[in-house]
């Protein structure tokens, strides 16, 4: 019994010990979930169909799309004016405007004024605060 419980950790491979144990625990827990929730898992297709049917696809996928575009453009735009944070400012204004318009339900011109004002003021204020006051790096 004493030998069975004794463990020697080899320093060279010590980085793999804990991840392996956690991996095994996850596999065992996953198996237990699979067994105890087999009926639920068997009907997972219906669950996901329901999720996608109820989803506002335009707003959900639009948010993801705009966010990916925003993240992708920030650095290339910022590289045109390095160390100024202008990449953040130039990309944030249209991003805030477009997501605001995307989230709106009533897009009559008069109703969009607060969104336009926010899109201009908020990124400018944040850009000034972080670059001029806090001296933090922005793209």
């Amino acid at each position: 019994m004493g030998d069975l419980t004794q463990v020697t950790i080899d320093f060279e491979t010590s980085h793999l010990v804990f991840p392996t144990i956690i991996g095994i625990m996850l596999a065992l827990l996953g198996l237990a979930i699979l067994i105890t929730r087999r009926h639920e898992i068997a009907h997972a297709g219906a669950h996901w169909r329901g999720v996608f049917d109820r989803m506002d696809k335009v707003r959900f996928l639009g948010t993801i799309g705009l966010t990916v575009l925003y993240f992708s453009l920030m650095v290339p735009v910022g590289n045109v004016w390095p160390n100024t944070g202008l990449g953040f400012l130039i990309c944030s204004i249209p991003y805030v405007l477009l997501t605001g318009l995307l989230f709106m339900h009533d897009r009559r011109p008069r109703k969009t004024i607060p969104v336009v004002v926010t899109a201009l003021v908020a990124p400018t204020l944040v850009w000034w605060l972080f670059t001029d006051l806090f001296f933090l790096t922005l793209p």
Partner: protein
Amino acid sequence: MEFFDLVTPLFLALIVGGTFVGVVFGAIPGMTATMAVAVCLPLTYSLGLENGLALLLGLYVGGISGGLVPAILLGIPGTPSSITTTFDGYPMSQKGEGEKALRIGICASFVGGIISLAALYLFAPALADFAIRFSYVEKFLIILFALTVMGALSNSMLLGIFSGFLGIFISLIGVYDISDGGNGEIRLVPPGTEYWLEGGFALLPVLIGLFGLAAILEEAERGVPEGHSADTVKLGKSSSFSFSVFRGQLVNLVRSSGIGTFVGILPGVGGSAASILAYSNAKTFSKKPESFGNGEPEGLMASEAGNNGLTGGALVPLLSLGIPGDSTTALLIGAFTLQGIQVGPLFIGNNPETWNAMIFAMVIANIAMFAMMYFAIRYFAMVVTVPKHVLFPIILMMCVIGAYTINYGIMFDVWTLLIFGLFGWLVVKLRLEVAPFIIGFILGPSAEVYFIKSLESFGDLTIFFTKSWIAMVLWVLIAGSVIGSVMLSRKRRTATEQPA
């Protein structure tokens, strides 16, 4: 540095400002105290530790308290911890007693906050003094206990524990750090991504993604429902409130605050559990349980005292053991990390000024919350009408700032934010639990160090059982939480299978 040197006008202004912003966040359905802390975290970079904590603690207290506004006026909990506030608060509002209900809730919140603060002040140093004696073995078992408690109190124990272990697994991605006694080797990193993942995923982008972006994605999925018009906000007559409503409610208030504080001390258990437990206890001990759910002030008091009781309680394990009591205090770990301070048993002893400043900040935050909400409740009530299409884009932008500036300008951290924002949305759909995941993610690297060092020192697995009486007590607690959860789940199943 003397304590009074820390209490500057800026320090006080940050507490009051943080409380104000927190109340606004809490009052808007879909926005939480956790989100408020996540979004404002980057502002603490240049503030220093005490001033940064002043802001974040104000946000925490305000965010939890603000949830009562939509819960009472619209029947929609502003934060998950306000669920039971809707049970009696909303019926009161429908009877034209909206303002009275709000003021009752505000007073009860204040009492809950102050009682939990007293518990924090008394228990955290004592627990920290005790925890200093812990070796790696006991420290590892404490983390294991935290994970099993979280699993046991989740909707499904298996899914809760799985979420916790998944958090640990993801936290291990990257280098086994030499500064932690590791060998400096990389693991769990897919080929080709070593450049980005060598240091693993940074904590704060993960937190901001899970609590900021994921919440907005959920709202987007639901079509970002329009805010409520001013006509739907029914406050009623301001004259109907009187402090006499609290006559005979001292036991209820103290018991509910105590329950909230105790639930807060349990790692990873959210405010919703605190308010539900406090509410159900108040109903059990009430002389008129039949009136609960129909606008009974007693129920409203229990709910609000319970959820604000959480605020001090959740800081007890954080400041004494380094284990967050809930998701918002998990974010506070981020604030400490930013300033290079490690929370754990030595924190209070080594940083008495910071400790005192935190307690002071919590007292001021509670007073500020009470003063601004009690006297300006008519204005705060209008916050529920603020359009989300104006607020959400700003929050998204602040999330980006937070992620980008955390490591002084690494774009991969911004992509981490998106990855974990999507992951946070998916977790809910898969019925996994976010709180155990995040606590596993935060504590994973420490768990690894404690586990490996224990084995390197003793070379025997039995050491986890035989090291000390504390280890044995912890095993009893671990077994108790698992057995308790299994019994609770069976009881629930039997109850649902029985015909009505």
